[in-house]
């Protein structure tokens, strides 16, 4: 699994120094600035929004908080490039808003442009705040209420308690959520490409897709890998130091009562977030879908938007995602078993390398690798499936590991003492007990692969279109009506994610980039 990483680094580091020198000034520095600025701003925005929403849902008497609680995570169901696409089709030049304004007022009014840093920032904050939100919520729930009461009995007022007690206690969760967000932003392709903000991923993509010039792409990738690795190392450090406070008291803290104004503002904020993340994207896709039915475009035939075509794309998506998920689980089993039963985690760490890598990078690495060693696999569906497995392998591994950790060794030993072989024990004892976790892991890999965009765009064999690829290409040309049907099918296929999110409250579902 780490092979693509090594190949890319080797290729990047072995390029001539002169290329490094020229690219460093012209490309790397501006890209570095762009990527870091966006990652920093989005992380900050997500932290503020995520903590605020978590606090409102967990600790105040916000009306409807029982419904808003899970609903605020539900934005993860819509792949984040879709959120971006529908926002552009709504706010963008000649978009729905301008059309509606023109129809209503009779005058053409220019909406401020959504393209660029601000637009990318807004969409990414809306897309990534659930990472911080879920972690902050869990942390708030496990806070010992006695600590805040102790602070009050010492004469501390609300603000002081928040900044000196609550916030420091949330810090480990916030650091984890913030890093998750930063790593995600660095790996995102769909949103920044849609909003025309240039970062490492879009630059690498252009090098690969346009010129197919691998040397500069590998070089840029090396810098991106370095950035990601720095963040990951920080993350590991923080996890190691993560102080876990147990909750001593079962007593729930009294909810903070919001004033009428506070309540109004809070409802407004929650409403706004849900509008941007959930209502507008689904509403706009429904609108475009209805328009594609009401007013069939003569050019639509070119786009292959008939039902048969749609079913073919869905079939391609389902097949590749399901194969990848199954393969990932089969590969994960022995590694996880080894890690849990014999406490050897070295392999696991290495196998997780793919998790944080942008899809663009994995596509590049596979292209380098296959091109040189197994040209017969290059541009086949297997290259694509292999990319999915590498990218989402860590989900499979984590699921199997956590499942295995809950099966006591004693059970296996008992079965062995009854004269069963290892395979028979796995089949009759271990596997039935781990099955729920395996199912969850399979679904996670499947759903993530289903919505994968950049690696699919770069590695798919000619004529093999998946739902994301189809809607991406259509939307890229401005044929939003033709993008609507595959988008809706994709969203509907993603709905099982709601169940996973409800069960685990874990932000493990990537947003699709």
């Amino acid at each position, binding site marked *: 699994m780490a092979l693509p990483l090594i190949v890319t680094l080797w290729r990047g580091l072995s390029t001539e120094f002169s290329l490094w020198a020229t690219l460093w000034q012209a490309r790397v520095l501006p890209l570095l600035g762009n990527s870091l600025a966006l990652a920093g701003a989005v992380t900050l925005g997500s932290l503020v929004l995520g903590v605020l929403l978590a606090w409102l849902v967990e600790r105040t008497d916000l009306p409807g908080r029982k419904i808003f609680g899970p609903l605020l995570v539900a934005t993860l169901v819509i792949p984040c490039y879709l959120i971006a696409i529908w926002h552009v089709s709504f706010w963008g030049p000649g978009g729905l808003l301008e059309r509606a304004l023109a129809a209503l007022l009779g005058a053409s009014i220019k909406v401020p442009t959504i393209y660029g840093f601000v637009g990318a920032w807004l969409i990414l904050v809306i897309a990534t705040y659930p990472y911080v939100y879920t972690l902050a919520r869990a942390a708030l729930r496990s806070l010992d209420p006695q600590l805040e*009461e102790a602070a009050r*009995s010492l004469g*501390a007022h609300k603000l002081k308690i928040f900044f000196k007690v609550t916030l420091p206690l949330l*810090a480990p969760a916030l650091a984890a959520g913030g890093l998750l967000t930063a790593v995600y932003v660095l790996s995102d392709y769909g949103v920044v490409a849609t909003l025309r903000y240039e970062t490492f991923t879009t630059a690498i993509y252009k090098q690969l897709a346009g010129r197919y010039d691998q040397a500069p792409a590998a070089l840029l990738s090396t810098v991106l890998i370095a950035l990601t690795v720095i963040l990951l190392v920080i993350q590991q450090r923080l996890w190691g130091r993560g102080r876990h406070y147990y909750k001593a008291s079962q007593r729930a803290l009294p909810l903070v009562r919001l004033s009428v104004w506070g309540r109004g503002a809070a409802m407004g904020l929650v409403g706004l977030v849900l509008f941007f993340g959930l209502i507008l994207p689904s509403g706009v896709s429904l609108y475009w879908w209805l328009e594609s039915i009401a007013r069939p475009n003569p050019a639509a035939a070119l786009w292959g938007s008939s039902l048969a075509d749609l079913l073919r794309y869905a079939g391609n998506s389902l097949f590749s995602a399901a194969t990848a998920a199954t393969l990932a689980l089969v590969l994960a089993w022995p590694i996880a078993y080894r890690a849990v039963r014999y406490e050897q985690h070295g392999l696991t760490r290495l196998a997780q390398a793919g998790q944080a890598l942008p899809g663009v990078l994995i596509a590049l690495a596979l292209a380098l690798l296959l091109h040189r060693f197994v040209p017969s696999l290059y541009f086949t569906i297997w290259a694509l499936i292999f990319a999915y497995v590498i990218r989402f392998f860590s989900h499979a591994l984590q699921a199997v590991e956590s499942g295995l950790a809950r099966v006591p060794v004693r059970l296996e030993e008992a079965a062995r003492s009854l004269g069963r072989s290892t395979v028979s024990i796995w089949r009759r004892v271990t596997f039935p007990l781990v099955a729920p976790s395996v199912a969850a892991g399979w679904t996670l890999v499947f759903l993530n692969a289903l919505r994968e965009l950049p690696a699919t765009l770069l590695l798919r064999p000619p004529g093999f279109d998946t739902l994301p690829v189809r809607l991406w290409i259509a939307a890229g040309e401005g044929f939003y009506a033709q993008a609507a049907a595959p988008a809706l099918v994709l969203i509907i296929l993603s709905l099982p994610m709601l169940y996973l999110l409800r069960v685990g409250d874990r932000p493990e579902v990537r947003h699709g980039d």
Partner: protein
Amino acid sequence: MATDFVELRGVRVRLGQFELGPFSLSVKKGELVAVLGPSGSGKTTLLRLIAGFERPNEGSIVIDGHVVADMTHWVEPEDRGVGMVFQDYALFPHLTVAQNIAFGLNKGDSCARVSELLKLVGLDGFAGRYPHELSGGEQQRVALARSLATNPKVLLLDEPFSNLDADLRPKMRAELKLLLQRLNCTTIFVTHDQEEAFELADRVAVLKAGRLEQIDTPENLYRAPATRFVAEFIGHANLLKGRVRGSCIETALGCFILTRPLPEGTLVDVMVRPEEVELEALATPPFSPSPPAPLPPKGEGQGVRVKRVA
């Protein structure tokens, strides 16, 4: 001096299924009162009422002449000047010992005060440690120092010894008693351990299912319990059924002299403390001739099980 410093008047609070009160309780300045009762009797709720973490549904609470809670007044916990030591200490895990103690202090004068308090509780040199690096006893002393730092009018202790090892308790108890006597601080503490309550407290309030059964000195509670529950809960009590006949009470073990007049024929219970019983061997056995089976020795004296054969 002997005026009521903390006063609860007809306080009643309802928390879900549980109801506490109505009851009244007053504590004098400098007094050390223990609240004793089985688990679920509302001891902790009583402390939380005084600290301001629960609001009474009825009645009023007065501290140092100021009404802090009644139907019209409400003083927030942070403005009450009530120090509380929580059952599991609730030390801030992200702050050092010194930072924990200084939490309620103003920046300016905290340094000197912190070292003074550390010395008071015998923890010099622990200032830079984190709570998880301390033993249970040390954590408790930090919690105590932290709540004393702000010079509270009243100190509340919730089961201060329950998280300590059994062999550490007597030592900590003695230390706490000395410290509180030195500070002359009005203190209310909650416990389910009768020995603890009797050793430390000037007066003990016995709670049962949210009601105050009796509040009195340890001596009086033991000698003259107001209710059957108090009699059974405190020490060992042998209760004998009896009937009033003339100036005495007739029981299976013989007649007891009636201490206050009761109508003829009233059914009563007679409490006999174990140490008030003396056993004498009889020549003719109305009791089992075999030697009585000894019970395991317990404190002073010895329990004896006697079988009656008649």
